[in-house]
Structure formats: structure tokens, C-alpha cells
């Protein structure tokens, strides 16, 4: 319990540091961090499924897409969501994405392992197909340009103000998701991840648990999408394509699945590599690919898992020495 408190303190301190330091840097860093924060809500929502429930989704970008397209369509067609009604759009984006997850979940939740990967891939592609082809609604391949950010007392066109808004919603999401995974419900999810059959035998309705987790994750994905639309200023099929879902999955694994905050670490590293390194060298994608491959081969628990691995290695070598001391001739 104590070590958990220390971990929470470290995370709070790190977030406070981000909130204080980033606004005082240049606009490039502010924009980069804003992007990473907005996207990392999606990554954390995926982590609820991947890290806490054991459901690796390959279609999480669909929910980001719903939130983003709702925001963009309402803003450009009806000038809706550019004042105080922005908060209505936030609510709507979350609700619609959760509703979509409720439909998709009915199809997907029964599947496990590889089949869950495949079915979420197929469902994600459905949304991509609509975004790509339904020209009259989504603008097709060109996407939709958002001309202005909302203004309500504060002007979100200002980079720093907008950064604080995204940061605030990110921190709130993290808090809510953290509460969720620490709750009895979250503990049951972890039980399902470890051994679903045992949880069933204990009388848990595992299907319902997974279904609710799926819907909650979808809702947070929608929130991420609303923020993403205003962060990027453009919503296009790029946002719902398979590679975006894969990105989210890789960020979660890179940071460390089942840690929530691993999502923001993964997002910052990947966005940093992609948008900063790409301005320096043409071969940045090799670095990204290599980071992915090496993480998966040598660091399956992600960056957040490093301290644990070091501790375990120490404990292991300690116990080896102990064994040698006790029984030097045993081997």
C-alpha cells in the first residue's frame, strides 16, 4: 500500500512538472505535448481493455474517430460547439462513442485472444470505410478542416490556454480511470484478465464486466477524439485508419500495459520521435520501428516495467548467491 502511495505521488509530481514547465517553453513543444496528451486519453482507454481486462483491441481509433468527426461536423456545418456549447459537444462525443462501443461490444466481447484482435480490426475498418467513402458527411479523403477553436470566456485559440484545457481533461480522465481500475469492479477485471474461467466459477458475470469495460473505454476514446479534432484542426480518415489503432496499442505497450500512465509516456515518446526527430533526420521511422521491435522483444512489460525488472533481477541474483552459499556442491 505504501509503495502505491509513493507511485501516485511520483505521477502527480511529474504531471505538475509538465503543467508548469511546458507552457514556458516554445510553441512547438506546447503543441507536441498537447497532441500527446489528447491522444494519450485514447491510449489509456485502450489500456483499460489491454492492460486491465486482457482484451487487445485493434480498432480503438474508431472511438477517437467518432468524437473527432462529431466535433468537426457540428462545428463546420452548424457552428455548434464553438462557445459554451463546447461542453455539450464533449458530452455528445463521449456518449456517441460509448454508444458505438455498446454496439460493437455486443459483437466483439465473446471473442478472445487472436479472434478479439481480428474482430476489433474489422469493426475499426467499418468506421474507416465510412469516414473514407461517405463523402457527403465526412468529406472523404480530404477530411474536414476546423476553422476555429471554441471561445467561452477563455479563448482556446491561444496555445497555452488550450494546453491547460487538454491537460485538465487529461488529468481528470486519468483520475477517473485510476479510480475505476482500483475499484472492486477494476479488481474483477484484473481477475478476468488473469483467469476468466475462475471468475466465472466464482459467480462473476464476466461477459458483463468486459462489456462495461469496453463501453467505458469507448467513451474515453470519444473524449480523446473531441480534443484531438481541436488540437489538430483537421479530421480525416487518417485518424481512424488501422495504423492509428496500432499506434495506440504500441504506445500502451511501450509505456507499459496495465499502468495507465504508461500511455502518456508512450504517447510522448512516439509523438516526440515522429514530430521532432522527423525534422532532424530523414530516417526517423527506422528509429520508431526499431523502438517498437526492441520493446516487444526485450521489454514486454514496457518502460514502466523497468524498475520492477531491475528489482526482480537483483532479488534473483541475490537468491542465486544465497543458494550457492547454502549448497555449493548441489549442481
Amino acid at each position, binding site marked *: 500500500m505504501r509503495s502505491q502511495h509513493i507511485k501516485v505521488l511520483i505521477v502527480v509530481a511529474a504531471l505538475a512538472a509538465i503543467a508548469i514547465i511546458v507552457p514556458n517553453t516554445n510553441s512547438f513543444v506546447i503543441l507536441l505535448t498537447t497532441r500527446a496528451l489528447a491522444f494519450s486519453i485514447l491510449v489509456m482507454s485502450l489500456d483499460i481493455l*489491454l492492460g486491465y481486462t486482457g482484451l*487487445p483491441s*485493434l480498432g480503438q481509433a474508431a472511438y477517437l474517430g467518432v468524437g473527432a468527426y462529431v466535433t468537426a461536423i457540428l462545428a463546420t456545418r452548424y457552428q455548434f460547439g464553438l462557445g459554451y456549447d463546447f461542453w455539450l459537444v464533449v458530452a455528445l462525443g463521449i456518449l456517441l462513442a460509448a454508444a458505438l462501443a455498446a454496439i*460493437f461490444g*455486443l*459483437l*466483439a466481447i*465473446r*471473442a478472445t*485472444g*487472436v*479472434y478479439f*484482435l*481480428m*474482430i476489433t*480490426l*474489422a*469493426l475499426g*475498418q*467499418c468506421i*474507416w*470505410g*465510412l469516414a*473514407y*467513402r*461517405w*463523402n*457527403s458527411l465526412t468529406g472523404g479523403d480530404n477530411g474536414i478542416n476546423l476553422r476555429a477553436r471554441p471561445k467561452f470566456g477563455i479563448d482556446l485559440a491561444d496555445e497555452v490556454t488550450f494546453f491547460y484545457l487538454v491537460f485538465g481533461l487529461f488529468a481528470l480522465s486519468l483520475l477517473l480511470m485510476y479510480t475505476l481500475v482500483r475499484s472492486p469492479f477494476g479488481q474483477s477485471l484484473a481477475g478476468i484478465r488473469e483467469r476468466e474461467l475462475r471468475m466465472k466459477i466464482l459467480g462473476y458475470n464476466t461477459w458483463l464486466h468486459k462489456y462495461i469495460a469496453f463501453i467505458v473505454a469507448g467513451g474515453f476514446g470519444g473524449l480523446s477524439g473531441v480534443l484531438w479534432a481541436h488540437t489538430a484542426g483537421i479530421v480525416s480518415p487518417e485518424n481512424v*485508419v*488501422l*495504423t492509428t489503432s*496500432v499506434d495506440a*496499442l*504500441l504506445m500502451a*505497450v511501450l509505456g507499459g500495459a496495465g499502468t495507465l500512465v504508461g500511455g502518456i509516456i508512450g504517447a510522448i515518446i512516439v509523438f516526440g520521435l515522429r514530430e521532432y526527430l522527423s525534422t532532424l533526420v*530523414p*530516417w526517423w*521511422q*527506422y528509429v*520508431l*520501428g*526499431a523502438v*517498437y*521491435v526492441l520493446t*516487444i*522483444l526485450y521489454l*514486454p512489460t514496457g518502460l514502466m516495467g523497468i524498475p520492477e525488472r531491475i528489482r526482480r533481477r537483483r532479488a534473483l541474483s541475490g537468491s542465486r548467491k544465497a543458494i550457492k552459499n547454502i549448497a555449493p556442491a548441489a549442481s
Partner: protein
Amino acid sequence: MNTQFWLVQAFNGISYGALLFLVGSGLSLIFGVMRIVNLSHGSYFLLGGYIALSVIWTTGSWLLAIPVAALVVAVLGMAMERVFLQPLGFDPLRQVLLTVGFAFLFQQAALDIWSGNNFDINPPDALTRSIVVGGLYLPLYRVFMIGMAAVIGLILWLVMEKTRIGAAVRATVDDAQMARGVGIDTSRISMLIFSLGALLAALGGVIGGAFLGIYPGLDFEMLPIAFAVVIIGGMGSLGGAAIGALIVGLADNFGKALFPELSYFTLYAPMALILAVKPTGLFGRE
């Protein structure tokens, strides 16, 4: 919309299905034997096309380009399976992420070597004509694609059904543990099937490059379509891949012609439904 429209669309759908069979059958076999969701399969398709281009540019021979591209990519696939996938063991998530990491690496490599331009693979003049059948002008190249897929499908079927190694592959698909138990070297089977799958995808890239073109991003465009083929047909079954390819080819063509705004939706929604109802696909082995 007269008979001619339906016939031409059906012909186009079938010939596109022929191409999809090449890509999908490999993916299906890989999935059946190894239970790997191979996200670098689209990259094999694209690399096949690019390597064929290089061969054509240096030697001028289209006929030579086909086997060279297929074999180079097959070796690449084999190396990837041996060095990276095999040591990973069975872990669906890590495998899928590893293959996508490689897909990104291949993407960058292709960009460096062949630049970001769009290319076309030009088949010999003899294949660019049209033939007239019953008043319909059919491009000979599409007829060739159908013939190629039929021949390869037949060879694959004969190998799978009539040879000892084919029987070993089928046994591994059905129950890998049992297959190991009776002395089948499933690790070697995995290696062979993975490189065969890569070979077939590359073949698809060379042949499809003539009418799809070869350009960056094609890899991740083909990949989900190949998965639709595999899932609708059933994973690990050749006949299923053939039927799945035909269905997807026709659905894609008619979808684009009849309701363009929903065309991809009509492709992936049935795929999701089939997966939800019967995860092993319409014709998959239980």
C-alpha cells in the same frame, strides 16, 4: 444498368478476387498454422511489387521479375520468422506488434530505396490487349490474373492434399500439439508456411502492381482487405480463401459501382458479423 454492366462488373470482381486469392491464401495458411495475425503481410505485397520494378528496370524482363520478387520476399519472410517470430513463442499480442514494427521498418526502407513516387508495372505488350467474348471487351491482363490464380490455387491444393508435407501442414492447422506428438516438426512447418505466405503475397504484388500501381501506403491498404478475405473464407483453409477472395472481389466491385459511399462498410461489416457468429470463418475448420 443492363446485362453488360453486370457482366463487366462481375468479370472485374472475379479478376480482382483472383489477385486477392494470392494475398489471402498466404495469410490464411500463416494464420492456420501459426495463429499469427501477421500485419506485415501487406508489406510483402508492396515489397514484391517494388523488387519486381527493380528487376524490370535493370533487366527489362517482366517474366524474370515475377520469380525473383517472389523468392526474395520469401527469403525475407523466412528470416523474419526464424530470427524474430519463432523465439517469441505463442503470444498473439506481442506477435502482432512485432509484425507491425517490421511493417513500419519495411515502409521506411521502401521509401528510401524506391522513393515516394507512384509506379506502374508494365506487363509485356502481348498481355495489354483486349479480347472480345460475346460482345464484351475483356482486358487480357485480367484474364491472365484469373488464370494465374487458378494455376497457383491448383498447385497449392495438390501440394496440400496429395503430398506428405501437405498432410503435415493440415495436421498442424487442425491440432499443432497433436501434430508435434506424432513427430511432425511443426517449427519447420511454420517456417515453410510463413515464407510460402510471403512468396504468395509478393506474387500478388507483382501481378497486382500492373493495375493497382505500386506506391507508398499500398501495404496498409491491402492488409485489411486480405484479412477480410481470410476471415470471410475461414482461417487456414485454401478453399475458404478462394471463396472469400471471390466474395470480397465481387462485393468490392459491386459495392463501389452501386453504393460508393458505403462501399468499404459493406465489405467490413459482414466480416465483423461473420467473426462474431462463427469466428473460424464461413469455411474454416472447427
